[in-house]
């Protein structure tokens, strides 16, 4: 197979990227040289655009890839030449992204992930390539996979799931996306603060202070509602037309409105299944089903888990089984922790909250006393954690753990062979109360995830440890 360049559209994308990257620099430059004529500004702008185009062209020219019989090779870099060689049978997940503007050109962006530990970036990235070539790549990957397990391949999916519109709607409504959004607004304000002259900002604020309180309150409520609307729309667009398919030993998810996103992951790479419910969704009997993979091609928004079903009614867990055959048939009965243990969790949460509360109360009188409001929240967190902490052995090969962190309940379903190590931990004080923590280590993305069941009765912890060793 011959060496190929990316689709020409990639060139435009690279130029655009360069311009974005230099935008802040440009603004600073213009800010620095205030006393310039118009033609001088134009000249600077011209030079910047010219450089952006030239570097993009060079980068484009040096970026090549080859699809061989056994592997894909990607060459990139100008000064530091890089050659990435990925054998098809090592590919763990394949992610395809198509922004709406790429659709008319029939091109896609591809990320290729292996189990190697390469940091947050995918091992292989092809920003813009033709759909025809993507299909070739997919075909090679599947044929190499089938060689290994000699199963007959069929192009028909074995199971298929579509998101329920009503469920998606409730999911978006109950998402707490408003908080990240406020953080985002804060960040934006900081950026503006740096870029826009202080004089303008001062003017805006002095005007604002002249207006009455009612206006300010209604404005902030308006911003809040607007923020919620935005976060609602973001979620709807992200999971628009979500679809999950099982093809032989692969899971394929498709989703997205503005950016159509397809992720292919192989079933036998799954480390664990996580069912997540925030307290609100718990009340509405809704849950999100995610998969922990040994590669990080999945979404950053979801702690790098692959979202299998963004939202599903708790009554419809049987819909997961066609995709993951080893899931339990019925709801397991968890071994819950004792009253004493629950009390210890509340004590810990309060003790942790007490540090900032005391500091606030001492250094910021009298408003610092408001910090006391943290204490009931801490009690709530402790109660919630205690209520949801639990563990159960489902079969000689399957374990399930439940925990509640920050008013979010996670239920983990973990095959024994995916638990990398298990630790029992017990302090001297816990010896008296016959309690112990149990820790499980899992592979998660490029690193590890620790799952901890706290304050278990020591006999239970010991029996689980023995279950693991057997």
């Amino acid at each position, binding site marked *: 197979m011959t060496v190929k360049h990316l689709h020409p559209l990639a060139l435009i994308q690279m130029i655009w990227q360069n311009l974005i990257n230099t935008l802040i620099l440009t603004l600073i430059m213009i800010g620095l040289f205030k006393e310039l004529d118009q033609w001088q500004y134009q000249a600077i702008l011209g030079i910047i655009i010219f450089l952006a185009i030239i570097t993009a062209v060079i980068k484009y020219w040096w970026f090549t890839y080859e699809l061989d019989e056994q592997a894909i090779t990607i060459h990139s870099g100008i000064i530091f030449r890089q050659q990435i060689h990925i054998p098809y049978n090592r590919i763990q997940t394949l992610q395809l992204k198509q922004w709406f503007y790429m659709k008319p050109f029939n091109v896609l962006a591809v990320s290729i992930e292996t189990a190697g530990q390469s940091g947050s970036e995918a091992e292989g990235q092809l920003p813009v390539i033709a759909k025809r070539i993507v299909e070739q790549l997919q075909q090679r990957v599947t044929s190499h996979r089938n060689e290994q397990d000699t199963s007959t391949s069929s192009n028909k999916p074995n199971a298929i799931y579509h998101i329920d519109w009503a469920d998606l709607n409730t999911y978006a409504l109950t998402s707490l996306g408003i908080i990240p959004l406020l953080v985002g607004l804060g960040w934006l304000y900081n950026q503006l603060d740096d870029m826009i002259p202080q004089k303008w900002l001062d003017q805006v604020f002095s005007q604002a202070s002249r207006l009455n309180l009612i206006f300010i309150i209604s404005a902030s409520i308006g911003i809040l509602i607007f923020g919620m609307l935005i976060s609602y729309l973001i979620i709807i667009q992200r999971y628009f037309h979500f679809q999950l398919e099982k093809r032989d030993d692969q899971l394929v998810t498709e989703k997205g409105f503005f950016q159509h996103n397809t992720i292919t992951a192989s079933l036998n790479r799954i480390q664990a299944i996580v069912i997540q419910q925030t307290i609100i969704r718990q009340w509405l009997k809704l849950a999100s089903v995610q998969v922990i993979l*040994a590669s990080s091609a999945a979404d950053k928004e979801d702690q790098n888990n692959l979202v299998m079903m963004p939202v599903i009614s708790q009554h419809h867990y049987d819909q997961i089984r066609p995709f993951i055959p080893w899931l339990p048939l019925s709801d397991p009965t968890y071994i819950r922790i004792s009253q004493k243990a629950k009390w210890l969790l509340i004590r810990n949460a309060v003790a942790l909250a007490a540090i900032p509360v005391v500091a606030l109360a001492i250094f910021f009188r009298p408003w610092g006393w408001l910090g006391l409001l943290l204490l009931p929240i801490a009690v709530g967190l402790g109660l919630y954690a205690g209520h949801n902490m639990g563990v159960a052995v489902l079969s000689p090969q399957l374990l399930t753990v439940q925990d509640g962190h920050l008013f979010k309940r996670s239920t983990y379903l973990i095959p024994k062979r995916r*638990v990398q190590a298990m630790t029992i931990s017990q302090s001297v004080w816990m010896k008296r109360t016959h309690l112990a923590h149990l820790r499980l280590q899992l592979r998660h993305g490029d690193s590890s995830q620790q799952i901890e069941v706290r304050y278990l009765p020591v006999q239970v912890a010991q029996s689980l440890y023995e279950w693991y060793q057997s």
Partner: protein
Amino acid sequence: MEKGQALPAKIKTVWRMSAGCSFVVGAVITAGLMATTKWWQWSPKFWLIFAVLTVLDVVIELALIPYRYRFWRYQISAQDVEIESGFFFHQQTAIPINRIQNVTLEAGPILQWQQLQTVSIETAATTHKIKSVLPETAAQLKQQIMTLALEATPYDG
């Protein structure tokens, strides 16, 4: 567990040495801070606090050596490696042999001088360390773990 193997007794010398090293480092920094007090009129509080901290650190480190040694145990069976440590904060970890991805032997200057080695056992998720073993034990251990790992059903990533 309490039935596993203890670390070689020489490790106590190593720990004493490393406490000595902490002392030397602390002393050098304290001397530096004293110099700043002399020449740049920094507050003498800095070096006093640092000196106290150094002494405390070294004393605690030394005092804990018998305790650390007493409760450190490891055991290698056909199925797994078990590591146990601590009394006040007791921890017992099991690493099944077929989860082990690789085994590394390493030794810093102090360990080399005492002819000891640290064994790092890596799984797909975490790294576990057996603080120190005699070189013959280390080689034997590596051999044992690698043979067992080869026999065990391979883990497929």
